[in-house]
């Protein structure tokens, strides 16, 4: 078995929620389990999903939304574990952050819009993505903002941060480690809502795999998920050590491990490996997606999940 | 491109035009009509006529560069390896600006079964013929008008053609250079028996060199006069004969 390792190509989005993958690889746990990992970085979920649909990658650490969307398009992929929840937060800056404080209300939005004579500009990702959905949920369900007072600007993850810092946006949905980095850079950046405030148990990054791969290498996947669970536990137990390790993959030479450690400890990081726990929230989110019209069909969420691997890993 | 019938059958004539009419564009009136012309092997034919009558056009048709509208053009060519059947001296010198002088002269030799050295040797000989042996390494833009024209002559000479088509080759040359080249041309013609079709606007030159003078005239142009010239062959040009031909031709000019 050691002579013939199973090769798995894993795609990821360079966000903190992919940390378990980095730890699994960095600690050499995959190799121990006889798996040879090849990590491929993607800028966004859709790109990664396209590569997955084309059979170019086997597993993926990415948001749950693109996975579900891909399933509705008939791509055979399943969620086999969870990685993190409640990632997205809403950050504001400048005059807007001052005006609404850390307890935003519908009135404070309206007042700001009236005072400045323009809508509040909030940057997020394109419709259908998790950030867009949870932001809308927060705005219209939680804070109950008048839709006439806000303008949602869909853009790429990294453009959102730039636009926020450049002052082109009043607020934006961002996630770790950017939350920490942004706050370090610009003290004027204020957290308007945490992930939990936006959408309780807000679904986030999951581990998904192609059906074909699951059938071919069930043992290897099981071992990998076991390592994943171990990694999630390690992050909670030893954020500092994890930060050092993760830094080799995420922002090497761009970030201090201390920043990552702060990010691990911050409110935007909540690692949960158990896929069972996120299903209700995902269902709720899907329902809301349909309500606001970003999706025309709902997927039976449970079908998108394959718990067997996690269950097997957790049982042992 | 060529709408010329090539024939390798032996014949007394090398160029045969039968009822040829030529024009530019589709709907424009023809430039030349009803041209019947048979050029014997080894003859030296001068073509004269007013500016814009169609001399260059006729030469381009014979060279296969322009397709006649009607009639038949036949070229009887020999198969001599290492030579081109036809060599053309353009009215504008038409050098390739990206080739130095020597490479411009070599141009026609490329693609022939001739070794590199032989090619260079022949090009150098041709350059020497036009007295520009010192200019081999120049770019065309570094030449004077007359030098450029002579390179064009050298290029046509280098391929050692059976038929030499020359479109006012000495037009930009001073009297002395011109005389020298005329003598060279006559010598080559006599020694090698090339057929020469020679457009010129200088009647004296025509009488001096050619054994036959074709006068084009009219709109559309046709052959208005076809004179055998006995003066040329023995090299002695008689003024009277020139004068006579001149007035004869002048009558046939119509500008």
């Amino acid at each position: 078995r050691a002579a013939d390792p199973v090769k798995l190509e894993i795609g990821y989005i360079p966000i903190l929620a992919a940390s378990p993958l980095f730890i699994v690889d960095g600690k050499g746990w995959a190799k121990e389990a006889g798996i040879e990992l090849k990590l491929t970085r993607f800028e966004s979920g859709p790109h990664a999903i396209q590569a997955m649909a084309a059979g170019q990658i086997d597993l993926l650490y990415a948001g749950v939304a693109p996975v579900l969307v891909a399933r509705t398009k008939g791509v055979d992929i399943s969620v086999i574990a969870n990685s993190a929840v409640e990632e997205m937060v809403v950050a504001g800056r400048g005059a807007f952050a001052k005006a609404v404080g850390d307890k935003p209300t519908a009135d404070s939005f309206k007042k700001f819009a009236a005072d400045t004579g323009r809508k509040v500009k909030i940057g997020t990702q394109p419709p259908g993505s998790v950030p867009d959905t949870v932001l809308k949920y927060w705005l219209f369900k939680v804070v109950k903002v008048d839709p006439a007072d806000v303008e949602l600007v869909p853009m790429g993850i990294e453009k959102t941060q730039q636009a926020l810092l450049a002052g082109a946006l009043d607020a934006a949905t961002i996630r770790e480690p950017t939350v920490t980095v942004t706050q370090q850079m610009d003290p004027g950046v204020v957290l308007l809502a945490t992930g939990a405030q936006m959408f309780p148990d807000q679904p986030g990054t999951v581990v998904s795999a192609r059906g074909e791969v699951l059938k071919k290498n069930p043992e290897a996947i099981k071992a990998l998920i076991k390592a994943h669970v171990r990694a999630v536990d390690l992050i909670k137990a030893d954020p500092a050590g994890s930060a050092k390790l993760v830094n080799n993959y995420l922002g090497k030479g761009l970030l201090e491990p201390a920043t990552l450690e702060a990010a691990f400890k911050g409110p935007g990081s909540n690692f949960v490996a158990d896929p069972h726990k996120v299903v209700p929230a995902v269902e709720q989110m899907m329902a809301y997606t349909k309500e606001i019209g970003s999706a025309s069909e709902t997927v039976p969420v449970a079908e998108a999940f394959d718990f067997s691997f996690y269950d097997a890993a957790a049982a042992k | 491109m060529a709408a010329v019938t090539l024939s390798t059958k032996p014949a007394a004539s090398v160029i045969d035009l039968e009822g040829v009419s030529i024009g530019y564009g589709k709907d424009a009136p023809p430039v030349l009509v009803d041209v019947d012309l048979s050029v014997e092997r080894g003859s030296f034919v001068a073509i004269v006529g007013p500016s814009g009558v169609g001399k260059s056009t006729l030469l381009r048709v014979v060279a296969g560069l322009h397709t006649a509208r009607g009639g038949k053009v036949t070229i009887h060519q020999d198969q001599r390896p290492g030579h081109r059947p036809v060599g053309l001296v353009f009215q504008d010198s038409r050098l390739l600006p990206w080739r130095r002088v020597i490479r411009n002269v070599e141009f026609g030799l490329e693609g022939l079964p001739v070794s590199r050295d032989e090619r260079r040797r022949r090009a150098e000989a041709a350059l020497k013929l036009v007295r520009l042996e010192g200019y081999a390494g120049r770019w065309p833009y570094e030449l004077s008008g007359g030098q450029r024209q002579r390179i064009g002559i050298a290029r046509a000479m280098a391929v050692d053609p059976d038929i030499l088509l020359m479109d006012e080759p000495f037009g930009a040359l001073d009297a002395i250079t011109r005389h020298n080249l005329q003598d060279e041309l006559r010598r080559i013609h006599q020694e090698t028996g090339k057929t020469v079709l020679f457009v010129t606007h200088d009647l004296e030159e025509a009488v001096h060199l050619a054994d036959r003078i074709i006068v084009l005239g009219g709109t559309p142009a046709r052959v208005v006069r076809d004179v055998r010239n006995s003066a040329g062959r023995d090299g002695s040009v008689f003024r009277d004969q020139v004068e006579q031909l001149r007035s004869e031709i002048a009558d046939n000019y119509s500008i």
Partner: protein
Amino acid sequence: MKTRNKIALSALGVIVFLLMWEALARSGVVPARLLPSPSAVPAAFLTEFRSGTWQQMVLASLSHYLVGLGLGTLLGVSFGTAAALWGRWDAFQAWVVRMLRPIPAIAWIPFAIIWFGVSEGAASFLISLTVFWINYYASYAAVRAVDKDLIELGYAFGQGGLIPRLFKIVLPGALPGILSGVRAGLGQGWMTVVAAELFGISGLGMRMMEASGLLATNIVVLYMVTIALLYGVSDFLFMQIQSRVLSWQR
């Protein structure tokens, strides 16, 4: 070749292309969800058209495109010509240009955001950038290659001053090269529309990104075909105008 034959051949080309595409899509070599067959486009068009999205997106992108193209072409031709004309200015800017030239549109986005905010202007700015460079280089080379004899002719006939020299000799002489640059920019502009709308400016590009995020590839392809048609028509018209303007070329 007769115009009729030309049109027939072009139509044949497009048909062959569409058939090959359809065949590729049906063969399953490419997963159907990544490459819808062309026959899926009309349905997608109807949906988008009925909802008014199509018209809206096309108009939005067209306006970014036209502004960007116009500006980029004008400035590119001007700067390229200037650099080719004045050795001093050329030397002065040569290395600055070399530093700015390879900066990709994506890297300019922060500046676009700073200078224009998340606005139409920013998208036009990004489009004009790529168009600028293409025109800059095309004009530079074309002006450099203008026949020096003709410039001399200008001096001989009192047209040696900057303005007459430029407009009577240099620009007409460089026109074929400049127009080829403009034509290349015409396409490059559309290629950049998508990138320029990546950061929250609505238009075809954004719609395509949205659709691609939802793996609605039929919508993506619809907009690709839309861009193709818009470009095709403008390129065709440009060619017609060009062959008029350059009718002095044999």
